[in-house]
């Protein structure tokens, strides 16, 4: 019996103190520090429905991401937004709650773009279904997508339905020796052309790009762009799951900026993904200066990994303007009136 909904309903209804919703724990370090009594959800697992020709998979929150990926791969399909796995214990509920997407996000879209429906347990212990298992659905507000990246602050995601896609027929990885400025310029120029570039990464004078799509299209692009050097086969997986040596750092910032932003002149080391839209930064610069630099170009900075006292002091996520925070608080109150789900994990005010 892998359906533990009833157990969760009772736990929520009887809760007198905050609950910390926890799946595989692969992202315990993400966001602000978890608080509250741990509510283990990883035993609530299992793929509820999957039919390849419908392009939709529905699974309980505790289902392992690796299990889902294996089942999809058997049918030649995948989660195109490439959620980082970080660890083998990563669950699909955690993937949705964290809302993170991997290297192909720029071309494929983000997790929320593929989130079609959720079954949610709200703070009153009510089971609610939003969205569904079809591609197009505009009945009611799109509460399902609101759950993407909400870090479990609005409810327990009992089940999620995700749109899946065919795996590309062909892929190729090309590598070019380029300065940061040259790499950014070239990536953005390529973006406005019909080229099958699905992912990019720049680090230490080397630009790596991934092509994917129809075999003919990938071959044509390879010829057009020049063969370049090849990268290690595991490169994109290592980037996605942050196993590259660059990521082994006690403090790491994630800057999300408009992709056309020129090189950010900040001290430290950078690794750039997403055509220039994602800039990982290792630096000693104070938090305020990093956040200001990101905001100045129309982006924001997340304190990704850090010693607890630093996260505690500056918060994991960029502060919100007051009217937006009010909307956030109103929404939190709408779904979790007693404030029992993951308090403070996203913002201290939620």
């Amino acid at each position, binding site marked *: 019996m892998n359906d533990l909904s009833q157990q969760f309903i009772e736990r929520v209804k009887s809760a007198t103190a905050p609950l910390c919703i926890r799946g595989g724990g692969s992202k315990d370090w993400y966001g602000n520090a978890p608080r509250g009594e741990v509510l283990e959800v990883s035993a609530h697992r299992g793929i509820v429905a999957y039919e390849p020709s419908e392009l939709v998979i529905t699974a309980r929150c505790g289902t392992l991401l690796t299990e889902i990926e294996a089942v999809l791969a058997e049918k030649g399909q995948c989660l195109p937004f490439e959620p980082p796995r970080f660890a083998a214990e990563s669950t699909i509920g955690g993937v949705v709650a964290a809302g993170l997407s991997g290297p192909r996000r720029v071309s494929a879209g983000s997790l929320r773009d593929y989130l079609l429906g959720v079954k949610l347990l709200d703070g009153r212990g009510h089971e609610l279904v939003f969205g569904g298992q079809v591609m197009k659905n505009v009945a009611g507000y799109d509460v399902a997508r609101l759950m993407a990246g909400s870090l479990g602050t609005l409810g327990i995601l009992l089940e999620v339905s995700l749109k899946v896609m065919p795996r590309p027929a062909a892929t190729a990885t090309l590598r070019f020796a380029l300065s940061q400025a040259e790499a950014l310029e070239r990536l*953005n120029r390529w973006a406005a052309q019909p080229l099958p570039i699905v992912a990019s990464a720049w680090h230490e004078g080397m630009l790596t790009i991934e092509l994917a799509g129809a075999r003919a299209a990938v071959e044509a692009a390879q010829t057009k762009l020049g063969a370049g050097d090849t990268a290690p086969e595991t490169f994109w997986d290592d980037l996605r799951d942050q196993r590259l040596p660059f990521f082994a750092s006690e403090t790491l910032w994630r800057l999300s900026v408009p992709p056309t932003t020129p090189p950010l002149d900040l001290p430290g080391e950078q690794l750039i993904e997403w055509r220039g839209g994602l800039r990982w930064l290792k630096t000693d610069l104070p938090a305020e200066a990093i956040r200001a630099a990101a905001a100045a170009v129309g982006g924001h900075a*997340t304190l990704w990994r850090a010693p607890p006292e630093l996260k505690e002091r500056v918060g994991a996520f960029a502060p919100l303007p007051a*009217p937006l925070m009010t909307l956030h608080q109103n929404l939190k109150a709408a779904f979790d009136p007693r404030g029992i789900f993951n308090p403070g994990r996203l913002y201290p005010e939620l």
Partner: protein
Amino acid sequence: MSHSPSSADVPEVPVEARDALFHELAAILPPAALITHPEELKPYECDGLTAYRQLPWLVTLPETEEQVVAILKACHRHRVPVVARGAGTGLSGGATPVAGGVILSLAKFMHILAIDPQACTARVQPGVRNLAISEAAAAYGLYYAPDPSSQLACTIGGNVAENSGGVHCLKYGLTVHNILKLRIALIDGTVVEIGSNAFDSPGYDLLALLIGSEGMLAVVLEAWVKLTPKPQTARVVMASFDDLTQAGNAVADIIAAGIIPAGLEMMDMPATAAVEDFVHAGYDLSAAAILLAESDGTPEEVEEEIAAMQTVLEKAGARDLRVSQDEAERLLFWAGRKAAFPAVGRITPDYLCMDGTIPRKHLATVLTRIGELSARYGLRCANVFHAGDGNLHPLIMFDANVPGELERATEFGARILELSVDVGGTITGEHGVGIEKVGQMCVQFTPDELAAFHAVKAAFDPHGLLNPGKAVPTPRRCSEYRLTGTAR
């Protein structure tokens, strides 16, 4: 015969409050931007769902963001309902006025403010027409992908409100996948920006919540849209089938073969008959269903994909296959599908266009059931739909001048939507709930879920002033619907 939204869900406005509001608006707006004469209010009494009409109390035509903010603030202060409106092409009554309420027309916000070809984005005002964005972006080899049938006339603000789709959305997504950022005004006049020119923003995904919210959470002041490189080439395969089940299976086979066509559309025999007369595209009139499958991309890609689709379609039992040989022929093949609504409009005095989405595997079953319902209600029904994503558009034909036909058509439509829910689908794929499908919301959602929607609404608009009475039924309406099968 016409309907109006239930007045019970709309706040009552005392006469003194209206007088006070009128004087305030007259002080803010130039005389031409404030319409009160019944003759001039008439064009605003309905949107594309013409069976429902309601004269608003007054119409405002602001030209600046400051004016919009001032109008909202004044309405908020006096607790007068406001309905924002673009071109009014919506098909579910989302822009139908409320009695005693103000219409906030965004028709004058029609400027494309910037196009950034390198970032592949455009910053536009809400009254800009969908097609105008693609026309302006064409100079850079870019276009705006979501293409509702009404794209010639509909505005991007309305697209945001309804999360509009179109033929391309199987491959390129709906509005929600193609909007990066919105500048919005809340009902109290607070202006905020949500989303980002970066690939994500901190906090909750309010952008997803706003898109498709049918004008009930905020008013769009500006939108940053994503532009897509124009495919170098596109070709379409037209396949005819002798039966609906075969055609339905062919759709599943294409997807299962790992192909995501740029468009995958189906028309049944009554639809084909109606459009062939109109556009002379050379459709196979004896086919039970016609499937149009488009491939776009580089010439190499398209050639590969078209060949693959031909193989799948032949194996699936297609009786006849034609591949467009040039751009003119491609457009001709599509002409009928694009003109399906007006074509049906020519053969019947009135029609209702329904909009359910179903899991694709139930296509044949649902079409067969619709055929049975058509016989039961004694009304013709033509089916055109986005087969690739299971989004049905049954066109129910009737004559409003024949007593009882509108009621029968409405009931027929309601049954189709309930059928969609029964097979695991939804009552609306892209047209929205508006006032048309408020009753069927009670079928798709439980009272707890509807309460959650009301709570979301209250989080943005505590007094329920933005587009009240639309999209989300009150518990009272649902009990009525369950008792009588009608929410009006």
